[in-house]
């Protein structure tokens, strides 16, 4: 127990990083997901094709493989470009690579969640928006979006929980998140079991709080829905 207390500040510092990575990736993934869903549902063949390629490739490659490719490959790419442009050496940090990769990966999953949510919105309600003279942006923001949240939320929540857990992978490329720090602590005290139990518990706290939050959001967006 004394070792846990001794290493706890380090692990909590890592936990903060985990939460940061997760939230930043979430923002990127929601943005990409919304873009992807709208592209897939648009009449444009090019946009639909690009979004289809994105979701097919990303969902078909293991997260760890993608992350490694982006971290090492991205570093080389950035430096090659930098050399040509005459920039100074740019270091792709594990943090940046982690956030971008996870955001990029989960953008693909979000695309499918949001697409499903939008498809579930009653066509008549959307049509009513147009019939009253709304423009496409107004229809999307005022009608489609608030109506789709309820339908997309279960799958969105699922994605968020998996995303949070996926941050553990960034420790592989050297980000000092709580998993990485627990590994250090476990190694030096020779009590890996203890420290990974601590990490497991901390993950449960994050996901537990998330569950609570998601339920609140669900309630907020289910107003006007008759309970069966």
């Amino acid at each position: 127990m004394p070792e846990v207390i001794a290493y706890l500040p380090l692990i909590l510092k890592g936990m903060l990083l985990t939460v940061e990575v997760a939230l930043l990736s979430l923002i990127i993934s929601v943005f990409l997901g919304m873009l992807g869903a709208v592209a897939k549902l648009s009449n444009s063949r090019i946009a639909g094709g690009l979004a289809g390629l994105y979701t097919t490739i990303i969902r078909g490659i293991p997260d760890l493989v993608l992350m490694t490719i982006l971290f090492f490959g991205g570093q080389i790419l950035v430096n090659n470009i930098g050399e040509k442009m005459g920039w100074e050496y740019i270091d792709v940090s594990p943090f940046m690579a982690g956030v971008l990769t996870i955001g990029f990966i989960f953008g693909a999953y979000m695309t499918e969640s949001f697409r499903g949510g939008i498809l579930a919105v009653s066509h008549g309600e959307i049509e009513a928006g147009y019939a009253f003279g709304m423009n496409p942006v107004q229809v999307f923001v005022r009608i489609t979006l608030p109506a789709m949240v309820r339908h997309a939320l279960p799958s969105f929540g699922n994605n968020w929980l998996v995303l949070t857990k996926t941050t553990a992978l960034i420790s592989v490329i050297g980000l000092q998140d709580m998993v990485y720090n627990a590994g250090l602590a476990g190694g030096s005290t020779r009590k890996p079991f203890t420290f990974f139990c601590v990490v497991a518990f901390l993950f449960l706290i994050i996901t537990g709080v998330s569950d609570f939050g998601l339920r609140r959001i669900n309630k907020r967006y289910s107003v006007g829905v008759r309970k069966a």
Partner: protein
Amino acid sequence: MTAPVEALKVESLYKNFGPIAVLKGISFEANEQDVISILGSSGSGKSTLLRCINLLETPTSGKVYVHGELINMREMASGERRPVDRKQVERIRSKLAMVFQQFNLWAHMTVMQNVIEAPTHVLKLPRQEAKERAERLLNRVGMYEHRNYYPAHLSGGQMQRTAIARALAMEPEMLLFDEPTSALDPELVGEVLKVMRSLAEEGRTMLVVTHEMGFARDVSSRVIFLDEGLVVEDGSPDSVFDNPRSDRFRQFLTGTIK
């Protein structure tokens, strides 16, 4: 008596859905304060006609004038026709309020929010003014007490009366009703028809696709009967109902008398 003012003119309107021709050359005019009932058996194209007027469907060919203004359409490279100017379509739609068979109220908004939504966002009416207008209209259709309810908690008749208030809140030049009572329980039809009758009496221009023969006969100023995408009868209710020119309408009447 002043000369009638043209509110709507439809000129040889055609609409195909793929290989199926739904409208095969429809022409008619409507003047201000006309209440026109559009009758026809299912599949005759009456809903499609209404939806071509506010461009929820793009006509395959033909012209639509709203208050003398032609809705510009052009042929795309694919052969499909599209409106030229989206803004023109939106402006015209904001003057033609539609009431749908399935109500199509926005489920995530209360009755009140449903009624102020389009006036505030499309007409850019100040919120307070839109709210006062909504309160007045909800009172009129008997929905004021339910203004904070969500559509899911209303009966069909209440939803349709809300939808009518939503349409009136646009202060439209013309009201388009697409089978407004067809999705209602029989005992709820009356409350909606009563509201519609009062609108007709105050001189609103209305185009009503309906199966309510009583409404067509007693309330409307004109009846149009469509069959297989063509206008078969067009005249005052008395002349059409008492002296139909076509066998098809006679058959239709016999079929609808219960």
